[in-house]
C-alpha cells in the first residue's frame, strides 16, 4: 500500500542538480561563455592568420581597427620608400584592388631585375613582378599590397594582440584546469585519508598541511623556479602544490561529518575495508562540495598565474598568458590602452563566468534546496 508510491521518473542526484542548474540563467550563460572561450583558446590560434610570435616591424603599436593594414594613405608613402631604396624612378603608381603598378622611367643604367628583392623583403608588399622593355631601361613593376588585419591592434613589438589573447586564454585556462585537477587529486586523497583514519595519523597529516600553509606562496614559487628552472610545468606544479592545502582541509571536514553517517557505519558492519569505504562511500559523497570548490579554485589558479606572470616569474616570451598580457598592457596603457583593455576584459569574463558557474553549482547541488 504505502510501498507503491514511487516518483514517475527515476533521477539521480546529478540529474536533479542538472535540472536545477539549467534554471539558473546566469550559470548556463557562464557555461556557454566558458565553452566558447575554451574553443577560442584551442582553435583560435590555429585559425588566425598571424602567429603569436610573428613580429611586424612596420606595425608596432598600431591601434585596433577593422580596416586592413596598411591603410590607404600609408600605401603610397611606403611604396615611394621602397622605390627610393631600389633607386628606381617611375610615374605615378596606380592602385587597382590590391595590385599596385608603376611605369618605370629610364635612369642612367639598365634596370637590374634583382630590384624586386627590395619589395620582397618589405612587409607591405609581396609578389613583385617586373616586366622590362627590350632595352632594359624601362618597364612596369607590379606588386601586391599585403593586407593585414589587426582587429585588436598590436603590441610594442608589432605582434597581433588577438592571436596573443587567444594564446593567453589557452595558457590561462590550461593552468587553471591542470592546477585545479592536481589540487583536486592530492587534496581529496589527503583530506579524505586524514579525516577517515583520524587520531594520530590525522594529526600528523594536518600538521604537515599547516606547515606548508605557513610557507609564503611567492617564496615557495621562487624556490621551485630556482631549483627546477622556469617552465610551464613548474608553474602548474607550484600552483597545484599550494592550492591543494585548502582542498585537503575542506575535504577533511566533510569526511569527519560523513564518517559518522549511518551508511558508513553500515559499510563497516558489512566488513568493508577502509579503502573500500573511502572509495565507495566517502569520496563519492564528497563530490558535491568538492565540485563547487573546484570551480572556485580554477579562477584562483588563473589569478595566481597572472600574479606570477605579472611579477615576471610566469611564462616566458614569446609564449604568453592573460596575466602577462595585462602586465605588459599596464605598462603601455597611456599610449596604447588597447593592449590592456583586450586581455583585461577577457580575464574578467573568464573569472565572472567561473564564479557564476560555481555559485550555480553550489545552489543546485545543495541538498537543503531540494
Amino acid at each position, binding site marked *: 500500500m504505502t*510501498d507503491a508510491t514511487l516518483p514517475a521518473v527515476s*533521477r539521480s*542526484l546529478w540529474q536533479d542538480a542538472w*535540472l536545477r542548474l539549467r534554471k539558473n540563467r546566469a550559470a548556463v550563460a557562464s557555461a556557454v561563455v566558458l565553452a566558447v572561450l575554451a574553443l577560442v583558446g584551442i582553435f583560435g590560434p590555429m585559425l588566425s592568420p598571424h602567429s603569436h610570435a610573428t613580429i611586424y616591424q612596420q606595425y608596432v603599436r598600431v591601434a585596433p581597427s577593422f580596416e586592413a593594414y596598411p591603410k590607404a594613405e600609408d600605401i603610397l608613402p611606403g611604396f615611394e620608400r621602397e622605390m627610393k631604396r631600389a633607386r628606381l624612378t617611375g610615374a605615378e603608381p596606380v592602385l587597382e584592388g590590391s595590385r599596385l603598378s608603376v611605369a618605370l622611367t629610364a635612369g642612367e643604367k639598365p634596370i637590374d631585375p634583382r630590384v624586386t628583392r627590395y619589395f620582397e623583403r618589405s612587409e607591405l608588399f609581396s609578389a613583385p613582378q617586373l616586366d622590362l622593355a627590350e632595352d632594359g631601361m624601362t618597364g612596369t613593376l607590379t606588386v601586391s599590397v599585403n593586407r593585414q588585419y589587426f582587429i585588436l591592434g598590436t603590441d610594442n613589438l608589432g605582434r597581433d594582440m588577438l592571436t596573443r589573447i587567444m594564446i593567453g586564454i589557452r595558457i590561462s585556462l590550461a593552468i587553471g584546469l591542470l592546477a585545479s585537477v592536481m589540487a583536486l587529486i592530492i587534496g581529496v586523497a589527503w583530506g579524505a585519508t586524514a579525516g577517515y583514519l583520524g587520531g594520530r595519523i590525522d594529526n600528523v597529516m594536518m600538521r604537515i598541511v599547516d606547515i606548508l600553509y605557513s610557507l609564503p606562496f611567492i617564496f615557495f614559487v621562487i624556490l621551485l623556479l630556482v631549483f627546477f628552472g622556469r617552465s610551464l610545468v613548474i608553474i602548474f606544479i607550484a600552483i597545484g602544490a599550494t592550492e591543494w592545502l585548502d582542498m585537503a582541509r575542506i575535504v577533511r571536514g566533510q569526511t569527519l561529518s560523513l564518517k559518522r553517517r549511518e551508511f558508513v557505519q*553500515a559499510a563497516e558492519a*558489512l566488513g568493508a*575495508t577502509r579503502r573500500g569505504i573511502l572509495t565507495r562511500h566517502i569520496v563519492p559523497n564528497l563530490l558535491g562540495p568538492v565540485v563547487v570548490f573546484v570551480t572556485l579554485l580554477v579562477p584562483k589558479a588563473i589569478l595566481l598565474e597572472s600574479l606570477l606572470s605579472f611579477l615576471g616569474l610566469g611564462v616566458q616570451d614569446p609564449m604568453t598568458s592573460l596575466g602577462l598580457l595585462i602586465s605588459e598592457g599596464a605598462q603601455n596603457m597611456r599610449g596604447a590602452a588597447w593592449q590592456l583593455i583586450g586581455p583585461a576584459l577577457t580575464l574578467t569574463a573568464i573569472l565572472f563566468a567561473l564564479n557564476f558557474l560555481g555559485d550555480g553549482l553550489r545552489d543546485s547541488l545543495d541538498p537543503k534546496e531540494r
Partner: protein
Amino acid sequence: MTDPVLSVRDLRVTFQTNDGPVQAVRGIGFDLGRGETLAIVGESGSGKSQAMMAVMGLLAANGKATGQAVYRDAQAGGRPVDLLALSDRQLNKVRGARITMIFQEPMTSLDPLYRIGDQLAEPLRYHRGLSKAAARPRILDLLRLVGIPEPERRIDSYPHELSGGQRQRVMIAMALANDPDILIADEPTTALDVTIQAQILTLLADLQKRLGMAIVFITHDLGIVRRFADRVAVMRAGEMVETGPAERLFTAPEHPYTRMLLDAEPEGRKEPPPAGAPELLTGRDVRVTFRIGGGLLKRGRDFHAVDGISMRLVQGQTIGVVGESGSGKSTLGRALLRLLPSTGRVAWLGRELPQGAQEMRPLRRELQLVFQDPFGSLSPRMTVGRILGEGLLIHEPDLSPADRARRAEAALVEVGLDPAMRNRYPHEFSGGQRQRIAIARTMILRPKLIVLDEPTSALDRSVQKQIVMLLRDLQGKHGLSYIFISHDLAVVRALSDYILVMRDGRVVEEGPTEMVFDAPREAYTRDLMAAALSRDRFGRLALG
C-alpha cells in the same frame, strides 16, 4: 453553540517542484470549537502538517495555499478574519500571540545561544511590548505552569542544560506566553521517550483544562490521541477521509483506512526456539566505557554506557532489548558486534570474537546490523543494486558483476520489492521501502545473527507492521537470530521471545516475553509499559 474559533474550508496546498505541481492538501475543511481538542492523524506524507503550516502562513517558498481559514479572535469581538488572505505583517499579529505552534524537535527549536528566560521573553516583548524586567515574573509563572522544577534557576539556563522533555515544556511555555486561542502541536511527542511522551500529553491536557484554549494535535500515532482528543480527523494523501468524535472513531471506524490505522498494531507472537537449539552468541560482563571531558591536566570522567551485561542467544531466538534513550541499548548492540571497543567476553559459536577490525572482517558476514534511520543508512550516491552488491563484493570477491546483480535481484524479491528497482537511487524510495532495502543488504550475505537497532521507529505504524511481518517471515525461512533493540514495546512484544530491560547501562529485568509483559517485577518496566498509553496494546495490562 458559539461560532468555531477556526473554520477551514476547501483548503488546498500546492507545491511547485521540478516534476510539476504537487498537491499536498486537496480541499479539506473542518471546524475547531473553542476549547476543543482536534487531533489530525495521518501517515507521513498525508499533508497533515502542511495543512496547518498553510493556516499559519509558514509554507515553504514554493508552496501556495488556496481556500479559506476563518479565525474568530475572541479579543477582537469574534470578528472573522481569513488568515489566508492576510499579509505577512497582519499575520504576525496573530501568529505567536493568538495562534501558536509547537514542533516535533525540541532539540532544535530553541536557539542554543540564548538563555531560556530571554527566549521566553521574546513573544511577550514583541506582542505585548513588555520590558525585560516586566516579563520576568510572567516567565516564572509560565515555567511553573509547565512544570519545570526550580524555575528561578532554570530561567537563566541555556537550552543544552535541559533534557528533551524539559525543552519541550519550555516550547509549550513559549507557545502559551500570550494566552493563545489556538495551540497547534505538530507531533510534539514523537522525538521523546515513551515515559516523557506521557508526561507531555498529560501536561497539555491539563493546561487545556485550566486555560481553555483549543488544541490542534497533529500526529501519526492514532494510539496516543484516544484519551486526549475530543474529535479526530484522519487524513490520507491530502484528503480528510473521516472525522468524528474520538470515542466513535475508535469504537466504530467507518472508513477502511481508519480501520487499517487502528489495526496497524503489530500482532502475533513469536514462538520460542526449540529447547535444544545450539548456542550462538554469549556475552559475559560486557562493558563499554567512554571518557567524558578531561583536558591537558584534568582527568576526564568515565561514563559506563554499558555496565557489565551478560547474555546468551541461541539459534532462532530473538532477544528484545528495551529501555529509554540513553540507556545503552544501541551501544550494547554495537559492542556485541565488536563495532565499539569493549571489555568482557563475547563468544560466537563458542569462540571469542577478536577485537581487531582486520580479524573481525571475515566474521562480519554472519553478524549483521540494521540501522534505525533508513534515510541515513543507505549511501545517497549509490544505486540500490550497488548497495546490495557491496557485501558480496567484500565477502565473495570472485562473483562476476552479472552474478552479483542476480543475487541482488533475488534479495529484493525476498524482501518484497520489485527487482527492476535495483537501478534506482535510495532517495526515490519511501521510508518503508528503504528499510526493506537495508534488510535485503544484510540478507544477501545469509547471516546467522542480525542486530536490529530500532528498525521500525522511523516508520509509520502501518509500515512498521509490514516490516515486523517481513522480519518474522525471514526468521522462519532462514532460522535467523535477532537482537531487537527498540523503545516501542508493541513491536518488541510481537517479535521477541526474550526481553532485556535496560536502564543506565545495566539490565534491570529480563525474562521470556510473556513473563516480562504480564508480570513486570520492576517499577521501571511498569513505567515503560504504562507510558505506551494505548490500552489495546498490552493484553491484560489495564491503564487507569
